[in-house]
């Protein structure tokens, strides 16, 4: 009797270990049930300005979100009660290592573009336009340290799972490695030829980055080398690991690509994943393209051309539920799409569309697969290429029903 129980426990632990390391994939996608008419994203937390990043802790209880005006909120997933992270004064920042802004900028620009939370839940890292990476303690919500070193706005951050190693990508085309525990800078990785937009890292010391130079690069840190994947002629906006050898990316022509380490081109592409339908006429503001005097701007085209390659179709964020085959992608066309990644046939199968108005700048799955969190805004994450007045700036959550 004892032996049987021990064997069972051993088996469960081994399965968990395999899932954690990414060698086995949970089949969640087939279990997701069709959404009812009443099922929708409900707004959990409201922000004043568009949300640029959301992050969930490992135990799925706490979530963090940041917006363009620099407010960072920590909220409880179930109740929605939130607390904000207060920015310390200028002197405190300087004592924590921040450099004074030079040149025409006389104030730190507080705009936060990205967030990352460590696996043990102790550290929250935020990066923004002021070129610093700010390290916060999640339990006391205090600012610990500011890492400086990047030459341009820090656009993406990611902690390595299980450690306190932090990877940061920035508009200065470099990826820098830091250690949050030791408050140290480790090294810089080169490779991109234009701004880096998204970074992802799982358990292994391998970093996946995607940039405006139309390449996706997998940096193998211990071997000091990188693999270069070329996208068919459009800038890539977001990326994430599916497993150690498969990746998903979204590009700015509205398509989603599935990649493998064995092929330099995508294994599967889904085109027009977030096509904008013509019925959304309320998306254009009244005086589109006109400058105050009533003259028409140079680049003003009719609203018909906005349908095809506008900012509403850019796939702003893509995410995969940890060690499973369920993926989600978000853009500005009004819905979040769920996908299933088939492992044998290596293709992306669409599951459902979840309606959500606004630019979905960031997505995060719960580790257990119970819910999906989306950071929504009236404008895209890195600029103001489009504006959707009917959207609500904030964090929305959707509970997945699994059979």
């Amino acid at each position, binding site marked *: 009797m004892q032996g049987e129980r021990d064997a069972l426990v051993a088996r469960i632990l081994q399965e968990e270990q395999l899932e954690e390391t990414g060698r086995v994939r949970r089949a969640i996608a087939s279990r997701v049930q069709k959404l009812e008419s009443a099922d929708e994203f409900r707004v959990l937390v409201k922000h004043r300005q568009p949300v640029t990043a959301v992050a969930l802790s490992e135990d799925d209880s706490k979530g963090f979100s940041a917006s363009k005006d620099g407010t960072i909120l920590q909220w409880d997933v179930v109740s929605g009660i939130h607390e904000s992270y207060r920015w310390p004064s200028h002197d405190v920042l300087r004592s924590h*290592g921040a450099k004074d802004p030079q040149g025409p900028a006389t104030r730190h620009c507080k705009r936060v573009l990205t967030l990352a939370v460590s696996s043990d839940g102790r550290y929250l890292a935020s990066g923004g336009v002021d070129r610093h990476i700010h390290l916060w303690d999640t339990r006391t919500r205090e600012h610990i*340290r500011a*890492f*400086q*070193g990047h030459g341009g706005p820090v656009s993406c951050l990611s902690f390595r799972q299980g450690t306190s190693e932090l990877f940061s990508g920035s508009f200065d*085309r470099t990826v820098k490695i830091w250690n949050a525990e*030791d*408050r*140290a*800078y480790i090294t810089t*990785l*080169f*490779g*991109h*030829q*234009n701004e880096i937009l998204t970074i992802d890292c799982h358990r292994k010391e391998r970093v996946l980055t995607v940039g405006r*130079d*139309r390449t996706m690069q*997998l*940096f*193998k*840190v211990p*071997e*000091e*080398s*990188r*693999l*270069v*994947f*070329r996208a068919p*002629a459009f800038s890539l906006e977001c990326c994430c690991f599916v497993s150690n050898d498969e990746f998903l990316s979204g590009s700015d022509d509205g398509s989603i690509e599935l990649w493998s*380490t*064995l*092929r*330099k*081109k995508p294994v599967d592409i889904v085109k027009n994943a977030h096509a904008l339908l013509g019925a959304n006429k309320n998306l254009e503001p009244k005086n589109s393209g006109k400058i105050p005097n009533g003259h028409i701007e140079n680049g003003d085209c009719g609203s018909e051309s906005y349908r095809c390659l506008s900012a509403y179709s850019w796939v702003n964020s893509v995410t995969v539920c940890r060690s499973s085959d369920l993926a989600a992608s978000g853009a500005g066309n009004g819905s979040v799409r769920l996908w299933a990644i088939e492992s044998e046939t290596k293709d992306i199968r669409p599951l459902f569309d979840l309606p959500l108005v606004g630019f979905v700048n960031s997505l995060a799955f719960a580790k257990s697969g119970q819910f999906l969190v989306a950071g929504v805004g009236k404008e895209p994450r890195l600029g103001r290429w489009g504006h959707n007045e009917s959207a609500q700036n904030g964090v929305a959550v959707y509970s997945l029903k699994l059979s």
Partner: protein
Amino acid sequence: MNTSRPLLNMWEEEEEEIKRELADATFEELQRALSDGSHLEYRKHSLNKKHHEEKKPGRANKNRPMEASSKKPVGRFREVVQAPKRVIRDPRFESLCGAFDAKQFRSKYNFLFKKYDPDIIEKERKKLDKSKDPDAISRFQNSISWMRGNLPAEREKLRKQLAKSNNPEVIGELKSHINWIEKQLKSESGQRTDAAILAEHKKKEREAAKKGKQPFYLSKSALRKQRLVEKYEDLKASGKLDAFIEKRRRKNAAKDHRYMPYRRSNNHAQPN
């Protein structure tokens, strides 16, 4: 060895010094140094650098992603359009196309300039009617295909089109095309006579060389003279020689007229 010991001593001394410095530095300074990255300068001795300078072997399969070093900074320049490089091949200078042989070229493309004779078609047609070969029709088509596609035939077609059309642009285009065809035919006939003259000269020289004479190359002026001689012979045969010479004389006279004086010159003595 004796020479290595002083070096070792120096290194140990440096380490001791660094250790002392670190012990004296405050915690704040240490923190700042760590996050700046300046601590890396002191680690140069003990850093176990793996030697990755050896060139990585090429990837196994050309479909695999490119592998490159992540330590070397990369420039900002990127190719905007990934187009394959176009290789331009000029057949005049390409060794694969072979050397140009004028005689062979002319004999091969002779059909373009031949004026076809309706009798030949009749002869071929009679042959077709007689034979019982199943492929006879296709052979007949092949044997007269050049008559349909060559330059004089094209000229006839264009002349018919010219007679029909009204559009001035189209008329202009057709006229220039016909003009071009006529130029081609004229130049070709000239080339043909030149080639014939040269061939004849070569044959004569070859005969003479066999007998022991040194072979001579025909110069351009000699070629021109021979051309004129042949032309005169042709004209004499057709009886138009007089008309040709008369026209030539008139043209030259008209040209020389401008050199004629129109005032009396005062060099001669006046009869008193």
